[in-house]
């Protein structure tokens, strides 16, 4: 096929620009690897999961490098938040789509969009000023896994709600008409027809929200207490992998710094798994 030279030039330029996105991903991985290499080499990958504790300041010899409590903290906080946010977010989506009178539904949706736009540092600030003291009155010290879960729930709820709603919105009208013509109640229609039809989109929403919960830093850093431990109850403080990096990177040197990049690598792996899962579920669609 004939192609004018200006087209070839344009295509070449666009390809280069598009490769930047690929290059950034590669660079992220490469830099995480390069920076974590010293620790992996002299500490060994096993010690990141088998050491007695996390006290990395002592260097490769005296230091301890166990990331497991923070991994558990991350998973516990994210899982708790997802468990709470999914029913709430779906409820919110159902409200918008099926229950709210039209005008209220529109206003409500705008409100959820605003919630989605509030920065995490503001949520964290609110959690620090309001939520943690509330929990402290009940179960000290207040800054705890529970506070982290609640703040994360509020943060990922709009994601679940908005994505589920757009998924419900794409359920063909004919299914809903068919269900009402059969005399099915609103709830039966939702449970039996709308939710099964929207399942793929909702599941993707949940995965993306999980990714967000795992990756969230500031809000958790501000309310979760940041003690490196495997929490025995939700009232105990925890530190997540992300909070660990934010808390210690500025002060970290050599192996300590390197160990933080290892935790970054662990985070990255978790996210890639989730993103792949999401795009695998969505392989029919263009975008996740």
């Amino acid at each position, binding site marked *: 096929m004939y192609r004018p030279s200006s087209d070839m030039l344009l295509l070449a330029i666009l390809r280069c620009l598009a490769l930047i996105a690929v290059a950034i991903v590669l660079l992220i991985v490469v830099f995480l690897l390069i920076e974590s290499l010293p620790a992996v080499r002299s500490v060994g990958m096993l010690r990141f999961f088998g050491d007695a504790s996390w006290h990395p300041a002592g260097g490769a010899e005296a230091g301890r490098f166990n990331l497991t409590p923070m991994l558990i903290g991350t998973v516990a906080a994210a899982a708790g938040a997802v468990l709470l946010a999914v029913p709430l977010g779906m409820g919110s989506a159902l409200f918008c789509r099926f229950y709210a009178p*039209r005008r209220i539904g529109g206003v409500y949706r705008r409100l959820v969009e605003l919630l989605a736009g509030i920065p995490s540092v503001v949520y964290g600030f609110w959690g620090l000023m309001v939520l943690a003291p509330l929990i402290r009155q009940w179960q000290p010290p207040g800054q705890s896994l529970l506070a982290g879960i609640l703040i994360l729930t509020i943060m990922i709820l709009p994601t679940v709600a908005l994505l589920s709603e757009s998924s419900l919105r794409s359920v*063909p009208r*004919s*299914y*809903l*008409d*068919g*269900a*009402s*013509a*059969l*005399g*099915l*109640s609103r709830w*039966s229609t939702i449970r*039996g*027809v709308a939710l*099964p*039809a929207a399942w793929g989109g909702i599941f993707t929403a949940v995965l993306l929200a999980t990714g967000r919960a795992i990756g969230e830093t500031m809000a958790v850093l501000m309310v979760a207490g940041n003690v490196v431990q495997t929490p025995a109850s939700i009232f105990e403080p925890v530190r997540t992998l992300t909070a660990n990096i934010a808390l210690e990177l500025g002060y970290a040197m050599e192996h300590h710094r390197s160990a933080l990049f290892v935790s970054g690598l662990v985070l990255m792996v978790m996210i890639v798994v989730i993103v792949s899962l999401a795009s695998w579920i969505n392989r029919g669609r263009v975008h996740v």
Partner: protein
Amino acid sequence: MTRSNLQITTPSDVSAGEVARAVTGASAEDAAKAEHLGVAASDRAPCCMDREPVVCTEHLTVQYGGQTAMRDVTMPIYRGCITGIVGPSGCGKSTFLNCLNRMTDMTEGCRVSGRVLIDGGDINHGTVNLLALRRRVGMIFQKPNPFPLSIRKNLTFPLKEHGVRSGSQRESLMTTALQQVGLWEEVKDRLDAPALGLSGGQQQRLCLARALVLEPDVVLLDEPCSALDPIASGVVEDLIDSLRGRYTVIIVTHNLAHARRLADDVAVFWLEEGAGTVIERGPAEQVFTAPRHPATAAYVEGRRG
């Protein structure tokens, strides 16, 4: 078919006097016609001969956001008969159908005035259990719309929601319904396959089975064959024909040949002053062979519409 019979089944004299008159008037007229056409009609469906109105509309008017779409339709529909609703597109045929099971509720800004009486009860009355009403009045849409579930679940799920607790009972009802629409042999080995994998004609028959499994009295069909190829369309048509007598069938179609083959009664909708209304109704033979309204005559002869 007697007058006293009618007296019992029509609603209270107080509120539905006019309907009673309309019904009586129509039925007297129809009775004459029925006698006139006697043999043919009774061959097709003896049940239809009772001329007992099940559904009556009374000055039914529908507005969408202030725009009148259908005006002043007063019409009885008889038990066990197949009533064809014909007319050019956009003259309120589907709107009329949607009034009969209150699907109009689903449309934003839709206002219905006048009354729809089914078995003498006003379906727009405040205490109506809408779900029970819609179970009683089944509906089939223009485009087949099976749920994105398995074939089995498409039938058992509505049953379950309507309180059929026993699984085995649901299974047997499902089997019967599928046999009734002639789908059983085709799908019995893949009941758990997705319903959306069926062909268009099969999907439409599944939808019919889904409606019939709830044992409705009235079945509303909104151009059920228009989205199907001729062969599938023929199968569905035969199926509808077989419903005569057992169900009261109201079918919207713009296919006149179709209406002529199927319907016992026909109502012709026409656009008058920007809104659809009934310009002629009566036994199919009469409407098609001896139309009284000039527009009907032009329409059935294919000159207009």
